[in-house]
């Protein structure tokens, strides 16, 4: 399997479909006896539809319903409390901080990891010895279970541990901190670990995007006397923009729901200094067996992702997707 066919699996047909959607339909479709067609369609479509509706859409409706109750997870659902779960959440400073931390991690992921990934991808987008190997190495953290990454970094970052020793051996002992116990630093530490896990994915994704840019365009610009900077600025980056926007979507949706690495590094602590919406939900809802409250937080988290995705689709991805998702929800 060559690289190009694999990329085609993701990119080619998508483009092909866009053009097909504009013109007349390619395939007339099967036109058999009506009953037979209906039966076939049902057999093919119903299982996936039932699975999807039952396990993706129905649960959020159930959660929305439970969020109006005070419920410990057992027994009948009879303690209706209206919107009190929601009002309690928004009056709890820990939850407000959790929202702030989630948004800070999300913004930092885009603003810091984005330019970093683009710069590294640009610099690595040239022939050099060991490029394929390096790409594989850089990608490796992305395929590790984040929970296991979290355990690894908690070992590296423990007081007097490997990270501290390395700093000391470089004469930077003064920089040593209580990486996971200092309330002023912990969120930054979490962000560094997140970057370690996810930056490689961005780099490899952007490298794939760079390789899809036709060489002729750059060569033509160079023949016309464009400087390297002008070629990058006017040709490469604009043509890379769709890939950057896709990376942005994946990164933001991922950051908004971030749970595993934060939970394992800090459990949201110390003193809620690194809690996110998801860890707050687990700590205050699940561990405190207040499932009505946990449902309310889940609904709020859902709303965050939903609103973001709508805006992103409408304003950033619009040119790339022709509103594949906006069409879905209005």
């Amino acid at each position, binding site marked *: 399997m060559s690289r190009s066919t694999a*990329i085609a699996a993701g990119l080619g047909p998508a483009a092909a479909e866009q053009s097909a959607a504009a013109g007349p339909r390619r395939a007339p*479709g099967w036109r058999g006896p009506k009953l037979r067609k209906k039966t076939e369609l049902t057999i093919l479509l119903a299982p996936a539809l039932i699975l999807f509706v039952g396990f993706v859409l129905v649960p959020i409706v159930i959660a929305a319903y439970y969020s109006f109750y005070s419920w410990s997870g057992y027994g009948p659902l009879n303690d209706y409390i209206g919107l009190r779960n929601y009002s309690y959440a928004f009056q709890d400073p820990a939850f407000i901080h959790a929202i702030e931390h989630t948004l800070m991690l999300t913004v930092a992921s885009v603003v810091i990891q984005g330019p970093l990934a683009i710069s590294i991808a640009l610099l690595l987008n040239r022939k050099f010895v060991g490029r394929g190997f390096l790409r594989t190495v850089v*990608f490796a953290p992305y395929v590790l279970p984040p929970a296991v990454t979290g355990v690894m970094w908690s070992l590296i970052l423990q007081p007097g541990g490997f990270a501290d020793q390395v700093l000391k051996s470089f004469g930077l002992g003064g920089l040593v901190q209580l990486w996971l116990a200092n309330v002023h630093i912990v969120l930054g530490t979490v962000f560094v670990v997140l970057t370690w896990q996810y930056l490689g994915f961005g780099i490899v994704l952007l490298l794939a995007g760079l390789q899809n840019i036709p060489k002729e365009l750059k060569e033509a610009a160079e023949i016309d006397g464009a400087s390297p900077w002008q070629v990058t600025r006017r*040709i490469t980056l604009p043509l890379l923009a769709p890939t950057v926007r*896709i990376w942005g*979507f994946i990164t933001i949706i991922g950051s908004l*729901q971030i749970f595993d690495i934060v939970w394992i590094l800090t459990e949201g602590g110390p003193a809620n200094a690194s809690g996110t919406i998801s860890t707050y939900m687990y700590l205050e*809802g699940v561990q405190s067996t207040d499932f009505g409250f946990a449902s309310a937080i889940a609904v709020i988290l859902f709303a965050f992702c939903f609103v973001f995705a709508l805006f992103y689709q409408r304003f950033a991805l619009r040119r790339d997707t022709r509103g594949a998702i906006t069409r879905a929800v209005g």
Partner: protein
Amino acid sequence: MAAITQTAGPGPGSGFADRYPLRRWTVMPATYLLAIVAFGLTVVPLLFVVVDGFRTNGDINSSPAGWPHPWVAGNYTSILTSAPFWEFLGNSALIATVATALTLVLGSMAALALSQYEFRGREFFYTVFVAGLLFPLGVGALPLYLLLQRLGLLDNQFGVAIPEAAFALPLTMIILRPFLRAIPGELQDAAMVDGAGRFRFFLQILLPLAKPALITVGLLAFVTSWNQYLLPLLVLQTSSHFTLPLGTYTFQTQYSQNDAGIMAFTAMAMLPALGVFVFAQRYIVAGAAGAVKG
């Protein structure tokens, strides 16, 4: 910023490079330097965990950043000869396999329906699936817990695998449907002329042609399931049902004094993912790129 300005353009030897002679002397060294830094930052933490797994706890405490002295294999052998590690591994494999199989079978059936048939509501059904992208599993985990409790599927591996398959469907549809639609219609006519029935055409011609897309979809489903943490954490309660990520953190909290043991366990937990998935890199990237594009 200087590095970025230097990046575009063809290799040395062209007239372009002659016009910017500085490039040849700055870009390649910068590239190699960056390559080495990126390599080091990625590999050193991994190596640290693997190597420390060969040390004793006393050795680790006396010098946290040193080489093993002496090298001991006991941490690894005691993990490899104990039941929990293999149970976690088996559970992860079971759940990921079931989730992947469900995703592939149901996903390709639905993609066939939405690509090879003309019917009212086809685009509506497609958009319903696509809308699922707005709703990642991390957000759905708690609602799923409530549903699984009602269904009596708590503490059951299938209670993890089935929802994972459901959440993998949007990406599956987005990758598969355009791929199936892009296959030329003449093939279908030729198959009919040769007397092939519809399902035979699907099974023997269409799906084999869609193999690259199916591999991408299957690998994405498998990796996503393998790495999932929140859903198994909520659903699985007996430790003999735990997945590998769940088991790793449990091991850490249970044996918090045994650093060397935790290192070895963590290293072993990373091995399957590193060994298999790194080679799946191109498919994962292609799938991710296709995800939002469709």
